[in-house]
């Protein structure tokens, strides 16, 4: 059963997926993943986009707002401010924390207090959000400031006499719930730059080639010959990623975390399957030989266990067949489904 390596294709001298980094700095990583299937590449893209935990403002308590902007408008704007997520793995999700609403183990508190006293309009920036209280480390939850002036995002402008005073609670979350928790501003994902596979139907007026600029990655792959017939068996194998961070996590950490999240997802399911195998009283999937006295999953008893011999309309899985209530539903039949 183990006569193959899952990560390898059938070709020889094949050592699984290959990663080549073509550009890397503090805001982006461009890399090429090759010798992998599109399904895995897409899983990686999806998981980096939506399932990496970060921290973002989730609750805003407004004490004083005499600006022209509505409270909820400001609250929404604050939610979208990227906060440094270094060490967020040590922060608990508020829903998992023992506290009533939030505490230093599951949140970071930020305060903002600004009043315009001059005739000139005053700009309030993300740097004016001041973290307070105990934190897991000195950077977690601080607003991301990456502009040369060190100001961060512009939050609002105040006229003379206007004042804003509020308290924000930043919590851990993932972008699947709200995109404010997205670690990446964008993830570029491209394959087959010459469109040899015809996955794209490019619109044109007179001539495709002159109307569509060549892809950034076109030089990395052989262009098709004029007379080349369409290859029906071809599958994409080179994927060009461009991971750009919003500033909350370094780009290489986004990639590492992405794979990590995928791993945890798998580990959780494997754990659940094996836990259930040990526990006698569960109603989910179990190996058919479970009742045969094995220690649950993974043992290779094949067809020798009693459950297997049953066959016919009364497999171990089918239970009592027609005697269960289900067998008498309007779905009828004696053995329920699939028999």
């Amino acid at each position, binding site marked *: 059963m183990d006569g*193959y390596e899952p990560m390898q294709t059938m070709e020889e001298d094949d050592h*699984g997926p290959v990663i080549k980094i073509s550009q890397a700095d503090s805001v982006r990583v461009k890399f090429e993943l090759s010798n992998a299937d599109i399904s895995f590449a*897409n899983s990686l893209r999806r998981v980096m986009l939506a399932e990496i935990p970060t921290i973002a403002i989730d609750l805003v308590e407004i004490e004083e707002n005499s600006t022209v902007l509505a409270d909820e408008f400001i609250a929404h704007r604050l939610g979208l401010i990227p906060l440094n997520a270094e060490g967020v793995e040590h922060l608990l999700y508020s829903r998992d924390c023992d506290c009533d609403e939030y505490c230093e183990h599951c949140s970071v508190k930020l305060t903002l207090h600004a009043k315009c006293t001059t005739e000139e309009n005053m700009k309030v920036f993300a740097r004016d959000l001041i973290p307070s209280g105990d934190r897991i480390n000195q950077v977690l939850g601080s607003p991301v400031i990456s502009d040369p002036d060190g100001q961060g995002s512009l939050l609002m402008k105040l006229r003379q006499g206007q004042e804003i005073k509020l308290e924000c609670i930043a919590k851990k979350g993932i972008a699947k719930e709200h995109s404010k928790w997205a670690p990446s501003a964008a993830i570029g994902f491209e394959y087959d730059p010459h469109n040899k596979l015809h996955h794209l139907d490019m619109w044109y007026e007179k001539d495709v080639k002159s109307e569509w600029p060549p892809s950034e990655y076109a030089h990395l792959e052989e262009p098709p010959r004029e007379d080349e017939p369409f290859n029906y068996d071809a599958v994409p194998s080179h994927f060009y990623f461009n991971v750009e961070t919003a500033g909350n996590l370094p780009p290489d950490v986004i990639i590492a975390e992405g794979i990590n999240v995928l791993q945890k*997802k798998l580990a*959780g399911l494997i754990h659940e*399957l094996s836990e259930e195998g040990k526990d006698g009283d569960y109603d989910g999937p179990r*190996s058919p030989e479970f009742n045969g006295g094995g220690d649950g*999953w993974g043992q290779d008893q094949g067809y020798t266990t009693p459950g297997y011999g049953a066959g016919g309309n009364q497999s171990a899985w089918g239970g009592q067949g027609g005697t269960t209530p289900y067998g008498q539903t309007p779905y009828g039949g004696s053995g329920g489904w*699939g028999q």
Partner: protein
Amino acid sequence: MAPKSKTQKETPEEVVASEADVAMTEPPTSHQPAVEDEDASMKDGDPFDDEEGQNAEDEDEDEEEEQQRVKLLPGSTPTAASFEFLEEGHTLGNALRYIIMKNPDVEFCAYAIPHPSEAKMNIRIQTYEGTTAVQALEKGLKDLQDLSDVVTEKFKASREEFAARMSA
């Protein structure tokens, strides 16, 4: 969990049977109890109402304890089974489908998201004799984990190599 078609007339024996072998007897999620049955139980009135109330309570308690994220769908045999994953989608589904199909003992594997507004993902696995669909699923999960391990390693190596090249 009690079968959803609990509005049917149930004799005590049947109730016991359903508790002992719930996964197999539970109707698919798309199953809706037939309308006639519902009418019948309503006419019957009180004696059933008590029992139903209790069943419903038990159900709630179970769900609160721990939500089961993988479920075997009815009608499965050892070598051909359908699984329902809660809170999973294309991210896991497509990659898992691919890696399970790579297993030479697997005859067929496919995944579907039956409805976009339900966070459920179904996987169908049919294996050749000698292994089971459950084993194939478990192997698929482990293989995908191994694949992720390799990609992590490759990425780290590639990052170090890039850093070395830049500083050189």
